[in-house]
């Protein structure tokens, strides 16, 4: 029997539980439901028998088949290579531009630059891919037209396997660096101006000030952003690559997510595709947990 005190307390908390009901129900169905559905990776899944139907369990057989496929290792290598290059570029480029932009004293020009470079962040990869496919076209595109004027032979950015990964990395940084630049610029403005004043008195030049005051001043946020990006080690960028790749560049451009998609949706190999997806999610989970742990430890950042 609850005491009166406990009962009033529970009664007071009751509306909080009621408020959570709709979200909890939807999350159980659409997030936890699929989590239970990863069982498909361990079954010989026949859709007609239903999600909770009588499926044949096959243990790790799907994973053995998956890792015996000739193209799985190139796909993993492509994924890590593209994702890692994006992670590095995604920190270095915005930090550089934040530092350069910080040297601009005119506020209006500073604002205008931010406005211009931040916009592509909010456009979908479908639109961006449409634009990039057009301007990178070897015959009629803007980039090759301009390159032609300085005597460079047309480059097939999206059709040449040795150019494709670099094109993905560069266009991804192009689309995303405005956001990082704004984050780092905000961190730069929070550095105490007194530090610079005393450095000047000590005879430090601009370069020394950047090296010994500015960079250490934003190191915390650099570490935080880098550590959090670790979680993306297996995210090659499905939206981007799926809209821009073609079979000619599969050798260097096919990533785990596109592989999972083709296997699952196009070839209806549900069990194999789920196994590949589960492999990705499992590895990503390790990296996410590790990155949150590192972020908490070294940058005092907590998600909640």
């Amino acid at each position: 029997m609850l005491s009166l005190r406990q009962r009033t307390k529970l009664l007071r908390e009751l509306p909080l539980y009621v408020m959570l009901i709709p979200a909890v129900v939807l999350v159980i169905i659409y997030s936890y439901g699929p989590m239970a559905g990863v069982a498909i990776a361990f079954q010989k899944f026949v859709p007609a028998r239903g999600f909770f139907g009588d499926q044949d369990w096959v243990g790790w057989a799907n994973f053995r088949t998956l890792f015996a496929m000739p193209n799985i290792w190139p796909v993993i290598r492509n994924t890590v290579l593209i994702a890692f290059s994006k992670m590095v570029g995604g920190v270095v480029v915005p930090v550089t531009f934040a530092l350069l932009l910080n040297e601009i004293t005119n506020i209006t020009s500073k604002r205008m630059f931010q406005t211009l470079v931040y916009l592509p962040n909010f456009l979908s990869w479908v639109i961006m891919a449409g634009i990039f496919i057009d301007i990178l076209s070897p015959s009629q595109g803007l980039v090759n037209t301009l390159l032609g004027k300085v005597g460079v032979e047309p480059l097939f950015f999206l059709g040449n396997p040795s150019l494709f990964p670099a094109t993905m990395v560069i266009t991804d940084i192009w689309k995303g660096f405005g956001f990082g630049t704004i984050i780092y610029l905000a961190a730069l403005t929070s550095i105490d101006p007194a530090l610079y004043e005393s450095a000047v008195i000590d005879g430090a030049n601009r370069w020394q000030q950047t090296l010994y005051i500015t960079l250490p001043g934003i190191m915390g946020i650099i570490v935080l952003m880098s550590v959090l990006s670790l979680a993306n080690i297996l995210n090659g960028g499905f939206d981007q690559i799926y809209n821009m790749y073609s079979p000619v560049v599969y050798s260097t451009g096919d990533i785990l997510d596109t592989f999972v998609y083709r296997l699952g949706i196009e070839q209806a190999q549900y069990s194999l595709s789920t196994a590949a997806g589960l492999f990705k999610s499992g590895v990503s989970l390790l990296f996410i947990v590790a990155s949150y742990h590192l972020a908490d430890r070294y940058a005092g950042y907590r998600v909640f």
Partner: protein
Amino acid sequence: MKTSAARRVFVVCNTVLLLVVAVICIAPFVNLLAISFSDKVSVAAGDVTFYPIGFTTVAYEFITNTAKFTQSLVVSFERVALGVPVNLLLIVLTAYPLSKSVREFHARHIFSWFFVVTILFNAGLIPTYMVVRYTGLIDSIWSLVLPTSVPVFSVLVAMNFMRSLPKEMEEAAYIDGANHVQTLVRVILPVSAPTIATVTLFSFVAHWNSWFDGMIYMNKIEHYPLQTYLHTVVVNPAEFLRANTDLTGNLAKYLTLISHRTTGAAQMFLAMIPVLVVYPYLQKYFTTGLVMGSVKG
């Protein structure tokens, strides 16, 4: 401080470099716009760079007269009109209880983890697809709304904002005899305008830009939202003109004036407009929203 010669050289180089980068960032959009307003011959010759050649609005006329574009636009509006309010309602209803301390809401930690687990672990494509299929949402607009109805990241942003509010406000409401619903509606929501704006924008941009769910959950092309339809245009540009050969009357006239590049550019540009319209607000709220979201309680 005296400016040295080296400093002046740096300032000039830096300004020039940033200008060049700004131009590189904006050039593709200007090129897109120029192509969409140019005639097909100049575009095919590669003459069009940053201004239209042979100015014409025929690509836009053609698009606005084709059923596919307008149909998918309607689906996208429908999706935003349903999806954003559903997101918003669930974000508020979830963030408020989670913003309470454990003393006020004993199950707080359990529920926080319940939601955060969904960010940590992604079940993957096929299991998600199967759930949507078995819940009967294939070819329904709700397949674009319900699976993403609880954006956990936005919940965390809103929760952190509510936790940063002075405790005295709620205590005063409690002493005045307000229950949780009254406190939320009359005290918390009115002061949460910035965070509501942030998560609304998150939600709008996410719904407007999503294309993949439309592609896998919709079997019929007439159910595709705009971005999914544009994906078909991007991967198979010539298909658009071929698929619209059922246009009667003016078709022949149009086909001599447009190409897949001019119509493609015009469609991309039209799809950008809603984002351009909210862009000033995005700039204002997006970053501050993220910063608020990362403040720990």
